[in-house]
């Protein structure tokens, strides 16, 4: 019981403190090493969307945002980074899928899930919004039609 109380205290502490975005090396779709710390333009909103080619709700979410992405960019200084958590079973599908869908997102490959693990993401889809290297908002799961709510949230950050 004591441990539990201590744990809850810990959790409470963490939940209300702003967090730095973890520094991890991931790969671009062309195999280049990219440091997460390179997403560092001042006051820009970086939306990291964790997805996989086999995850239907993830694709639904990215498709929905894709339709309004150009519009968002006129309203906000925002960049969406689609982080493919596909392991080597399905990673070869990432390129044809994004090209086929014509997504204009920045694509990162997190094939052994180093970034996903650092953020303790249990399930995808999962969004992490980073501003000035701080995590300012997270959203887990996808609800169809929730893009407007997300846009409103991004505007408030």
């Amino acid at each position: 019981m004591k441990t539990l109380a201590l744990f809850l205290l810990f959790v409470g502490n963490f939940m209300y403190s702003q967090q730095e975005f973890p520094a991890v090396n991931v790969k671009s779709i062309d195999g280049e090493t990219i440091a997460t710390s390179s997403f560092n333009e001042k006051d820009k909103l970086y939306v990291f969307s964790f997805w996989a080619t086999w995850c239907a709700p993830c694709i639904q979410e990215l498709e929905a945002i894709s339709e309004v992405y150009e519009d968002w960019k006129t309203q906000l200084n925002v960049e969406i980074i689609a982080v493919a958590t596909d392991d080597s079973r399905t990673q070869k599908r990432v390129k044809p899928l994004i090209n086929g869908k014509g997504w204009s997102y920045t694509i990162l490959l997190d094939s052994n899930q180093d970034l996903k693990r650092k953020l303790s993401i249990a399930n995808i889809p999962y969004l992490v919004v980073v501003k000035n290297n701080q995590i300012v908002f997270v959203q887990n799961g996808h609800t169809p039609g929730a893009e407007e709510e997300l846009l409103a949230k991004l505007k408030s950050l």
Partner: protein
Amino acid sequence: MKKISLLIAIAFSGISFGQTEEVKEEKKGNFFGGFESNSQWYTNDKNREINHPEDPFRSNSYLNLNYSYGRWTAGIQGESYAPNALQNYNPKYDETNVATYYLNYKSNKLDVTAGYFYEQFGSGLLLRSWEDRSLGINNALRGGKITYTPTDNFMFTALYGRHRSGFDVSGGDVFGFNSDINLFKLLKIESSDLSVGFSYVGRYEETDMINPDFDELTNAYAGRFNFSKGNFYWSTEFNYKSKDGVLYDSNIVDDYTKPGTALLMNFGYSKKGFGLDATFRRLENISFYSEREPEVLAPEKTSIYFNDKLMNFVPSLTKQHHFNLANIYVYQAQSLVYLDPNNGVGKAGEIGGQIDFYYDFAKTTTLGGKYGTKIAVNFSNWNNLKGDYTLFPPDYKTDFFGFGKKYFSDFNIEVTKKLSPKLTSSFAFINQYYNNQYITGASNVTVKTNILAAEFDYNFSNGRAAKLAVEHMWADNDRKNWAALLLEYNFNTKFSMFASDMYNYGYDADANLIDHETDPFDIHFYNVGGAYKKGSTRFALNYGRQRGGLVCAGGVCRFVPPSTGLGFTITTSFN
């Protein structure tokens, strides 16, 4: 060194003149981590002839805590399987204790870890250590790892460690070296892109055998390249594992030693609205564990069954279906050599491939309609290696490009069509061939199936949405036909509920088709549940009968093991 980086920084600031200001790096302490708990209250189920285990309440919990300061990060993961691990998890997960810990130093070029770490070389066919809680896999290596990235175009990794196994480590020592080089970027060739990689993995384990026909150190090598030009890409890798003892009835026997190989090739062409991707793979004796002989962990269940002490990752290259019925006859990659004198089965690997084709019919064309139509076709086919298999004394000799007995095939086509701004539909046809005797050996039947599935998503407003999925499978053998239904409703962006059922019918009630791990006939696999999520936290509750497989609800997908009862999940991350 500092002067050079300063010079580069000045040079870059000149080049990027007009670009926006960058965030300055601040040195400060930072806590992060996460908590996940999956628990299950197992109930008796008269119809399924299931008695709950002696301790009906079981849970798996994971608490991960990290602290970083400047370039240093330290972390610890505690795990609790109390009062016992969920059913069918590795019996070595049997306590509440510290599971992994690490200390890491990371600068722009250097990344050094002491303690437990995760790593993957290439596609992982020789070395992958990773964590998958739903599968009970955590083969983190305990030791040390150094990664050196002098520029974006070079990456070198050297490591040593022992695999985590339960709350202990395995007896085999693992050595590894890996390099990844972006050759064309380095040579400033810009019209196309070529990267290459080389890996070495060594596994050292002492043996009790007198005069073994293999070395105690098993050496494995891999070479690979990735090429792309415009919309075209091509990658190939070859892996070789030196001669080592092969398992025969779960044991190493005298003079039965073989090398192993894996060849993987992938080609593709894609542009907006069109994609084509083809993969070929041939595996021979490429199962690789940090200990040669498996550990017996439960009656008739060894460490291999529980995916324990795995060196490498050999995924099955087939489509990962999200429809429930398409996940009943699921192919498993065949990397293991298996010779069984009792039923005459002899296999040494697999050969085959898969092809994917995507096409979008644009809006306002005949087939595209008002909102466009998307089509995805996938075909995969896998066979045993052609060769001579001697069941006793055990031996085999394979042809490199020969196709032996067919294991599995899957042809599927999925059409997605938006019918109105609020309604999206998708239809799928799936045809599968599944040779159970050769794939799992659990039964001697070969099944051919045809599956039809339809899914409808309707968006109201403010996050209110509904989903309906209807599926039917016609099977010519085994347990014959199945029907399935799924209903899901999102009340808002935070709260959702679902109800589903799967039913098996049209069978001949054959006792041979039922063993202690499968269900009796005439069972409704119903399930109801709900999920509430806020920020990074998610609670989910469900009651029902689980067959196991990939289940998606409330916009989230995960694998669940079979059971009857009440399940509760909480996941959160602290950030």
